[in-house]
């Protein structure tokens, strides 16, 4: 979960999406041809030039766009920040439904891809030969962008998870870095007992984090085959593993009631109120720019394990670039996408602090040996790269995960503020998701 939209806005956005689906529910016409496009065709298109619009909020793309335009002077790329995460998806959905103003390329987070792919809004990139890139990307992201033979986007970055911890705080209270979630629970107790103002983590209910944890615990609560969807948030083994530990953290009030990405959150990370953070490998850039004053205090470690000695990780966040079916200049759009995510652009983005999804870069010595001054000179990429290779491959998100995540706090969120149990909250979330899915024409849990 990389973005946190305020709840009010989320509601408004949904209202908008719901209203739209009433008026223009039919899927857009299939305008894409299935003809294969060769590298030669692409080169010709690049030579001829034209202009494309890219909707993305990822800051490192600025550099990529200017490099790309320098290399292909006849191509003009208009980079538009149409909002972050949910805001952008609402806008994109609106544009697709309205049939106008659709960008050529759009940034879509992995968890949201299914929604747009099933809505037939995205171009299948296998006709450009993107289906041959399988080995070039780490398994988590690649599985997220593909359905069968179809490739709906190219992975832009990835978020293999790691445990970031405030070494200064843990050392002060002589708490060892937890390696399992049980140890994590113990550490939470010890820390809060030693300093009532300090918490092991902040959590107010975050769908992205919860699903990532279930993913790591070997859960597969969401399964999709065509329009048949199964949601199992009650008996799934990943779900039960997660709720067991997290319920204890909640019951004993060991989690700081601070929302991710809020200014309070940045403050907590800086002043030691929040002692650890389990999140994606893209986080260091945010530490550097947002938690300046705690430089040197933090370190990275492998994500705690559900079983002692295990080597399983998970993905959190990360996004891809997709070519929109309704876009005007698909060949150029793909050429840009390939440039940004498969060839030269990748290096430029890594230099600017992005975490790659490309295996070659993840394994390159120069990448692995990069010291992180923020983490006291630690070579943190070694930890992240190992994590990237330990992500279970059988995970998938719901084909309406954007909606599901947006209502997460209505049900599961209750567990964080009242006596409702997490398991009960998840059960309610499942119920809401099933109802919504069936209303949308899926056959959920039938």
């Amino acid at each position, binding site marked *: 979960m990389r973005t946190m939209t305020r709840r009010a806005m989320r509601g408004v956005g949904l209202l908008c999406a719901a209203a739209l689906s009433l008026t223009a529910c039919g899927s857009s016409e299939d305008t894409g041809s299935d003809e294969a496009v060769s590298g030669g065709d692409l080169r010709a298109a690049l030579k001829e030039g034209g202009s494309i619009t890219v909707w993305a909020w990822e800051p490192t793309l600025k550099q990529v766009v200017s490099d790309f335009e320098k290399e292909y002077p006849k191509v003009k790329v208009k980079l538009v920040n149409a909002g972050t995460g949910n805001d952008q998806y609402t806008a994109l959905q609106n544009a697709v439904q309205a*049939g106008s103003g659709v960008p050529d390329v759009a940034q879509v987070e992995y968890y949201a891809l299914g929604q747009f792919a099933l809505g037939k809004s995205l171009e299948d990139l296998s006709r450009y030969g993107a289906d041959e890139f399988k080995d070039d990307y780490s398994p988590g992201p690649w599985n997220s962008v593909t359905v069968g033979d179809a490739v709906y986007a190219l992975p832009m970055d990835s978020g293999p998870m790691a445990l970031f911890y405030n070494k200064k705080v843990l050392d002060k209270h002589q708490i060892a870095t937890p390696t399992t979630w049980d140890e994590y629970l113990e550490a939470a107790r010890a820390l809060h007992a030693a300093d009532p103002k300090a918490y092991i983590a902040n959590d107010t209910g975050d769908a992205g984090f919860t699903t990532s944890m279930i993913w790591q615990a070997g859960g597969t609560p969401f399964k999709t085959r065509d329009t048949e969807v199964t949601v199992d948030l009650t008996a799934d083994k990943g779900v039960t593993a997660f709720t067991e530990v997290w319920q204890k953290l909640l019951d004993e009030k060991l989690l700081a009631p601070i929302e991710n990405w809020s200014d309070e959150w940045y403050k907590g990370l800086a002043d030691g109120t929040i002692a650890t953070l389990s999140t*994606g490998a893209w986080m260091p850039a945010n530490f550097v720019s947002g938690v300046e*004053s705690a430089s040197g205090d933090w370190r990275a470690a492998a994500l705690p394990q559900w079983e002692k000695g295990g080597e399983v990780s998970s993905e959190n966040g990360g996004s891809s670039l997709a070519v929109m079916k309704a876009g005007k200049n698909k060949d150029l759009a793909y050429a840009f996408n390939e440039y940004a995510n498969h060839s030269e652009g990748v290096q430029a983005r890594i230099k600017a602090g992005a975490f790659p999804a490309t295996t070659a870069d993840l394994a390159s010595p120069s990448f692995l040996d990069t010291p992180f001054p923020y983490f006291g000179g630690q070579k943190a990429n070694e930890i992240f790269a190992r994590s990237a290779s330990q992500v279970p491959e059988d995970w998938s998100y719901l084909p309406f995960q954007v909606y599901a995540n947006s209502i997460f706090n209505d049900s599961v969120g209750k567990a964080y503020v009242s006596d409702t149990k997490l398991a009960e909250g998840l059960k309610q979330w499942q119920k809401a998701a099933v109802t919504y899915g069936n209303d949308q024409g899926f056959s959920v849990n039938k």
Partner: protein
Amino acid sequence: MSAPSFTAEQTSRRSTHRAPATRRAPRRRHTAGRPRRSMVLTLLMGLTALYALMPLAWLVINATKTQKGLLDSFGLWFSGDFALWDNISQTLTYDDGIFVRWFLNTLLYVVVGAGGATFLAVLGGYGLAKFDFAGKRAVFATVIGAVAVPATALAVPTFLMFSKMGLTNTPWAVIIPSLISPFGLYLMWVFAAEAVPTELLEAARMDGSGELRTFFRVALPLLTPGIVTVLLFTMVQTWNNYFLPLIMIKNPDWYPLTLGLNAWNQQASTAGGQPVFNLVITGSLLTIVPLIIAFLLLQRYWQSGLAAGSVKG
């Protein structure tokens, strides 16, 4: 703020009558020269004032802090470093000075949108108040109905309509809907009915003045307080408009300030994004300055409007 001038006048008059009756205190008339004091009311007003001014104080104080200072210091007091000027210059130059562009966009939307809305409301309100025609009751019902429909509910249909016309992502998509202000129309209608005596218009007509001339020379000056009120309403509304531009405009080059500041704020919640809370806060401060200036400049017209009717009795 939402009470139009004439109701404010009525309520104030009513309360001076009723206030003595509600208390057991000896019945004695209170004149404006010797207002009665009340501890409870003073306290209540004090609290309200505090409640209203706190966010403003917070905004001013925190606009003086750096991004680091914001996170390290207590919210309602200054941090060691005074970075206001630096913040302002950063706000104006960050991201190739896009803030200035947003500012000009907002100005455009307000001048054309709110100005146009006021103009239309004045014309319409005057016409409805002073002329009789078939279907006036239906118009009345429609206007009242339109006042009740929140703009947010109309945003999506408007979006679809504009999208069909190919107007989304252009300034027109913000300006055209802003031109319609049912509340402003209603206000002008009621105000014109009260403030412009029909006898005066008849006299003007008798003297051979045409309708347009009568409107501009006789009615308009009498309507000034109402016009200023409507102008302030529509201005504030357009200046603060968020949802409409949010769904209409995707190109940051056409963002108004509200959307732009939100985009900066959202930056903090993006992987690799730079949190610029200090610029968001300073930008917010700069954003409200023009509104404050507008209020200060227009308030004397507005106040004279409040008083205008009260002596006529």
